[in-house]
Structures are given as C-alpha cells and as structure tokens.
C-alpha cells in the first residue's frame, strides 16, 4: 500500500522530468552505438564487451538517480515528514525499488533490443535473463545510492561517491582484464565486489545456451548484494534524528 503509493509518486516525479527520462533511456543506447562503431574493424571486441556494458549502464544510472533522489528526500524535509506518518522505511524503499526496477527494465529493454537488432550483437543464452540481470543491477545501484546518500550532506558530496564506490568496481569486475588473470590480492577484492558477479553472469548469458545454472547463480548473488545494501541503507533512515 505505502510501497505502491511511493512507487507511483516516484514515477510521477520522473514524468515531470522528461529530460531525465530521455537521458536515462537514450544515453545507454547512444553509448552502445558508439562502442559498436569504435570497434567497427574488430567486431569480436564488441561481441565480448557489449554484453558487459548492458549490466554496467543500470548500475551507473541508478546509482546517480537514487543517490540524488534519496539525498533530496533527506535534506528537503520530506523524509522527516514521512517519518511522522504510518509509512515504514521498508515500504518507502520498496516503492523506490519498484519504480527504479521498472525504469531499469525499460532501459535494459531498449539497449538489448538495439544491440541484438541493429548493432548485430548476439547472445547465446536467454535475452530475458540478460534483462532480469540488468534489473537486479539497478536494485544494486539503488542500494549503493541509498548508502551514499547517508554519508553525504549535499549533492556535490553525493556525486563524489560515484568515483569512490562505482569506478573501482568497473576496474575490477572483469571488463578491462578477465578476473582470472588478476593477481591474488586484486582477485580477492574482485571476489568481494557485487559487479564482478554481474559481469560473470552476463558472460555466461552471452556464451552459454538457455538459462545456464551459472548465470542464474550469479544473478542470485547480485540480488543478495542488492537486498543487503538496501537493508543496510534502511538502517540509515531513522525516525528520530539529531
């Protein structure tokens, strides 16, 4: 009830901001297209890295959107107001989760349709699984954005958490160098970061037919990280504040 009302409210806020929706849906498609033609002479690189980009976009966009949205919720007085109502913080976050998962699913749908259609990317496995994996990564972005919003006092600060929390994951997730080739320490750190599993998962989808057990296992790990981050973040939404 509270979650559905909150999801409706978040989507209505987005509807009044068509530019953000346009950027959320258009930019990943544009970047994927550029990537495709940068490697025009070397299609194998696009075939290898394209699927990974499909799970990186939702992390980046949802982290940015949710960290700013939740920071505004904390600083504009609306959270304080909500905390005097019967709405529980889990319903509040559930609402954000519903709205952003829907948005991420549409985003992933657009990127996937474009990549598999006009750009000529091929996935051996299930396309639906690729989209579900992207949606799970979006929830992870929400959880990390929520945590970042707890440690920032301004929008300037909260966007600085992007290079601090997201970029290391992009370096270590296997996009640049396969995880198997990383040294012991880096490999151990990589093992502890959620995006490593998202990238492993999408590699399985790209290379193995159907919904392979390995891909589904990676999806479950990403979801567990996402739920963990959201629950940890929920602890930072307090009814009583200083």
């Amino acid at each position, binding site marked *: 009830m509270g979650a559905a009302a909150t999801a409706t409210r978040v989507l209505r*806020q987005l509807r009044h901001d068509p530019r953000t929706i346009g950027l959320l849906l258009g930019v990943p498609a544009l970047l994927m297209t550029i990537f495709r033609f940068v490697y025009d002479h070397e299609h194998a690189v696009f075939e290898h890295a394209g699927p990974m980009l499909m799970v990186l976009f939702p992390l980046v966009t949802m982290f940015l959107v949710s960290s700013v949205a939740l920071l505004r919720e904390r600083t504009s007085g609306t959270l304080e107001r909500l905390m005097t109502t019967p709405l529980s913080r889990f319903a509040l976050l559930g609402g954000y989760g519903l709205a952003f998962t829907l948005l991420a699913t549409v985003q992933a749908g657009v990127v996937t349709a474009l990549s598999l259609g006009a750009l000529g990317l091929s996935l051996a496995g299930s396309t639906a699984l690729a989209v579900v994996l992207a949606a799970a990564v979006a929830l992870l972005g929400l959880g990390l954005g929520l945590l970042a919003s707890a440690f920032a006092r301004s929008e300037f600060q909260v966007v600085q958490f992007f290079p601090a929390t997201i970029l290391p994951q992009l370096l270590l997730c296997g996009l640049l160098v396969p995880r198997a080739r990383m040294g012991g320490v880096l490999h151990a750190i990589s093992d502890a970061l959620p995006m490593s599993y998202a990238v492993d998962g999408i590699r399985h989808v790209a290379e193995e037919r159907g919904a392979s057990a390995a891909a589904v296992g990676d999806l479950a790990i990403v979801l567990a990280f996402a739920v963990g981050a959201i629950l940890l973040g929920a602890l930072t939404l307090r009814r009583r504040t200083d």
Partner: protein
Amino acid sequence: MSFSPEHAVQARNLSVWRGGREVLHDVTFALPAGRITGLIGPSGGGKTTLMRAVVGVQRHVRGELQVLGMAPGSAALHRRVAYGTQSQAAYDDLSVRENLEYFAAIVGAPRAQVDRLLERVDLEAAAGQLVRSLSGGQRSRISLATALLGDPKLLVLDEPTVGLDPVLRERLWELFRELISAGATLLVSSHVMDEAARCDEVLLLRDGRVLAQATPAQLAQRTGTDDLEQAFLRLVEQRS
C-alpha cells in the same frame, strides 16, 4: 507521570539536545486538549526542537513527555499526530495536487479530502502547478494542507502563517478554530507576538526555557500590559 485527559501533551523536566547542543533546558508544560496553544518566542529559542520532540522525530530527549497518553512517536500516534514542518517538506517536482495525493494515500485519507483541503488553504487555482514554481506563502500552505490530511487529533504546526497576507492569515485562523470545534488540539508556533492574542493559551519560550504558560488575559494581568511584546519584555526582566 499520570496522564490527564484534559491534556493532549504533558512534559515535565524535559531537556532536549539537537545537533549536539542542549536546546531545551528542563522545560515543563502541558497542552490543554481541544485548545489552540501558541508556542511563541524569538527564532533560535527552541520552538522547532520542542515540536520535533512532541511529534517524536527528535533524538536525545530526556525527561517525561506524553502525547495523547503515549510515548511520542509511538506507532499508534502516526495517524493521530500530524506535523506541519517549517520547511515546505513537499516534492518540488510534483504538482500541488500530486503532493497531497501521495500523503493522503500514506495516511489513508480519502481522495475527496484532497480537493476539500486545496480549497480550504486557497490553493485550488495552483493545484496543477509544480511546487518549485510556487511562492513561499503557497509552499507553506501545502505543508499545512498535508498536515490536515486524515483528520489528526493533534496538529503541530511550525510557523504556519509566516509570510501570508492578512486576509489569508485571517482565514487560516478561522480554519484553526473549526478544527478545534471538531475536537482537535493545536500547537502553533510563531515568532510574531501579536499572533499570541489569537490563541487560547500561550507558551512563551526563550533561550530554551519556558518564560510563561498562561492565557493571553492572564499574561496581560500578570505583566500589567495588553501589549504582548511589552509583556514578553517584562517577563524577561522579572526573570533576570
């Protein structure tokens, strides 16, 4: 502390820390049920902190405090106590109506109440406008309308009439009177002394201490002046 039904809020020896600083020092007061109590005093005197303690969003509260016979912030109070914050506490990127519809859904108020309240706070014409395009006075009325959703028993309103034109201020005080007739209790803060005269009871707060709690008539009698600004000054003198 035993709860008396004549009092919607009772506080005894209440001390509150906000932002690491002791803001309220050992204050004792009681809000009579079914009345408007004006929380009057200069900015920085602890009015907002006192209100936050009553609605149960303030940490570091020491002493005794009961709200409608319960601990402040109890789950059962979430539907019965409403807080109109001083900051607008509305979503900038939603229309006025969408803001009210969201809060109505959360407190379980009927949708028809949204239209009624928009009319009562004179925001009908601006209902479709985004909050970010509104004036300060319009924003504070959204905060007020939001607090009225769901017919709460206790309304805690932080500076609800600040920046309003006199005609509208008059209408809001009429509205407050109607809410009292319907059985609600109001705590309304203001840094403007002349608003105190409109209240049933006045709680004067300065530097985190209660200067006086009395009816406006009692205050006039005690200080020998009808002018509340003067009365305030005399009470400060008597203290020091």
